[in-house]
């Protein structure tokens, strides 16, 4: 069961796993075992957290024994770790993908040397992401953002080819600037409120009008976390960085990193800390709409499968931001559900692109063709993921897009709703292009004797495909109240929508 004393394990387990992997790297099989065991451990814990939490309940853990000092000053001094509905929801998403990616990597990463380096960086990144989710302290949030980011810079450069190094350099420089903006925002908030604890900050800020300084902080946070989330004016690093990483890491980066570090923090900070001011709502809707358009239209003319998927991520994050920007409870539900679905189908599609690369050694859509007969499982799971991305009715992606569009209509943003529908159609177009060129048509001569990918990779693909297929069931009232409802409640309660 999850109690105050077990919360730190979400960070401690992956962190310990990362260091032990380095220490015990010489023993055969240790990196794989640690990677899979740690991620399954954190995943099971996050599921327990979701089951255990009631609506509106929070589990709080105070780090360090600051008791006496705290009473003198009358405020919380140490770091607080908090698990509430939104955190538990995000923990499940992050740790589920991390677990499946770890299983997939057991086979896939044999192509690269030095598996232990991969797993230790991977677990460090997971520790950073879990830390971002559970922390209740602004500076601590910045530290965890940096842990996850630096691990991801290194993972993008993992192949150490020309492309990888160049993409990683671009990503690292832009990411560092974003982190500086975030740090600047945190300092300004601290100087304004005299505390770093988020709950205290909320209370202090709620009693005030918005002075000019706060608007400056909004801008800093939007730019900083917007860059981590790859919103459109800040997206330039993503189409290079995500395709350059090894496929499992592309799945992690596109599937959960941009959401844990970007979308989640934007939601947490702007809804819970600042009470969702009107200006931010407008900015989020605008940026969301622009991201949707730019990502989808540029994705149409990509011939590199992973690059196409990366641009599609920008477009789908735009959908999520649009939902968050509208800000009605229904729109938030749609946004969070789309976040969940996007994690699932985008990870699945990146893992599929990795499977194709593993078997056929190419990422260029023009060179593929006719793989359907040779790789039935990859083919099937890609089609399920692609249909979910395109929003074809029984699949999960359809329901979340529908909710966002309905919410936009209800909030009488007709133009945005129409724009979202139009971009969904463009999505169908680029998805069909990918499936058509990779799997249908004549089998090329050089692929005559390729085979389906190994067992561990197949397991991950099948599980993710099942989640994409049946994800719509999460909207059944009983399930919805326990899982998505909790998370929506956290965001709507404080903002008073």
């Amino acid at each position, binding site marked *: 069961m999850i109690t105050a004393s077990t919360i730190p394990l979400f960070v401690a387990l992956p962190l310990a796993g990362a260091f032990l992997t380095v220490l015990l790297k010489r023993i055969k099989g240790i990196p794989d075992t640690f990677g899979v065991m740690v991620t399954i451990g954190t995943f099971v814990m996050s599921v327990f957290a979701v089951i255990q939490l009631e609506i509106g309940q929070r589990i709080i853990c105070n780090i360090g024994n600051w008791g006496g000092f705290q009473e003198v000053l009358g405020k919380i001094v140490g770091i607080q770790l908090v698990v509430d509905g939104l955190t538990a929801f995000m923990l499940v998403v992050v740790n589920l993908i991390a677990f499946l990616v770890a299983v997939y990597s057991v086979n896939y990463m044999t192509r690269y040397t030095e598996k232990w380096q991969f797993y230790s960086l991977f677990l460090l990144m997971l520790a950073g992401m879990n830390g971002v989710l559970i922390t209740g302290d602004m*500076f601590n949030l910045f530290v965890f953002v940096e842990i996850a980011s*630096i691990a991801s810079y290194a993972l993008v450069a993992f192949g150490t080819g*020309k492309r990888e190094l160049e993409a990683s350099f671009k990503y690292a420089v832009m990411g560092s600037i974003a982190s500086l903006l975030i740090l600047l925002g945190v*300092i300004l908030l601290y100087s304004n409120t005299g505390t770093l604890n988020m709950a205290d900050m909320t209370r202090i800020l709620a009693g005030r009008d918005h002075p000019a300084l706060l608007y400056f902080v909004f801008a800093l946070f939007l730019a900083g976390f917007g860059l981590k989330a790859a919103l459109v004016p800040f997206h330039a690093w993503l189409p290079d960085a995500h395709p350059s990483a090894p496929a499992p890491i592309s799945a992690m980066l596109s599937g959960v990193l941009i959401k844990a570090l970007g979308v989640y923090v934007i939601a947490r900070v702007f809804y819970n800390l600042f009470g969702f001011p009107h200006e931010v709502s407008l900015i989020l809707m605008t940026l969301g709409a622009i991201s949707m358009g730019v990502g989808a239209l540029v994705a149409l003319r990509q011939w590199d499968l992973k690059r196409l998927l990366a641009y599609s991520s920008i477009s789908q994050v735009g959908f999520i931001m649009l939902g968050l920007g509208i800000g009605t409870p229904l729109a938030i539900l749609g946004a969070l559900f789309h976040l969940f679905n996007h994690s699932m189908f985008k990870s699945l599609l990146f893992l599929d692109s990795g499977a194709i690369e593993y078997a056929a050694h190419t990422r260029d859509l023009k060179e593929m063709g006719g793989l359907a007969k040779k790789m039935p499982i990859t083919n099937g799971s890609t089609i399920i993921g692609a249909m979910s991305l395109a929003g074809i009715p029984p699949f999960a992606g359809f329901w979340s897009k529908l909710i966002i569009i309905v919410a936009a209509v209800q909030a009488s943003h007709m133009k945005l709703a129409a724009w979202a529908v139009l971009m969904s159609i463009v999505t169908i177009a680029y998805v069909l292009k990918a499936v058509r060129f990779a799997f249908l048509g004549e089998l090329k001569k050089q692929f005559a004797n390729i085979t389906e990918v190994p067992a561990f990779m197949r397991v991950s693909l099948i599980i993710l495909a099942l989640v994409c297929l049946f994800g719509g069931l999460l909207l059944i009232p009983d399930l919805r109240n326990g899982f998505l409802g909790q998370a929506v409640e956290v965001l709507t309660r404080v903002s008073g929508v």
Partner: protein
Amino acid sequence: MDAYLPYVLCLVLFCIGIYAVISKRNIIKIIIGVIIAEYAVNLFLILVAYKAGGRSPIFSRTQEILPEAMVDPLPHALVLTSIVIGLATTAFLIALAVRLYGKYGTFDISRMRELRG
């Protein structure tokens, strides 16, 4: 005006760093730009903590010192963390620069054109 001068200088330093990152073509100069911007932010952290005529934040048995009379100790602790993170980022960027030099034989970023579109 004098009271704001350190903050303005800090901002100028930050802008110099960002300018270097945006306009320079040499990888090493870009990295130096990142470092300058980072130091500007660290400096700003220390400035926020400073209080004119503040004492060092140590409680004493022999005389009564109110917390209000002290310099704020928390940002000093934070800036250490921030410097260490900066070290990690810088070390990583420099390692990348060395590897990039090995691949391309140049530090000029405009000649590295593997990625487009």
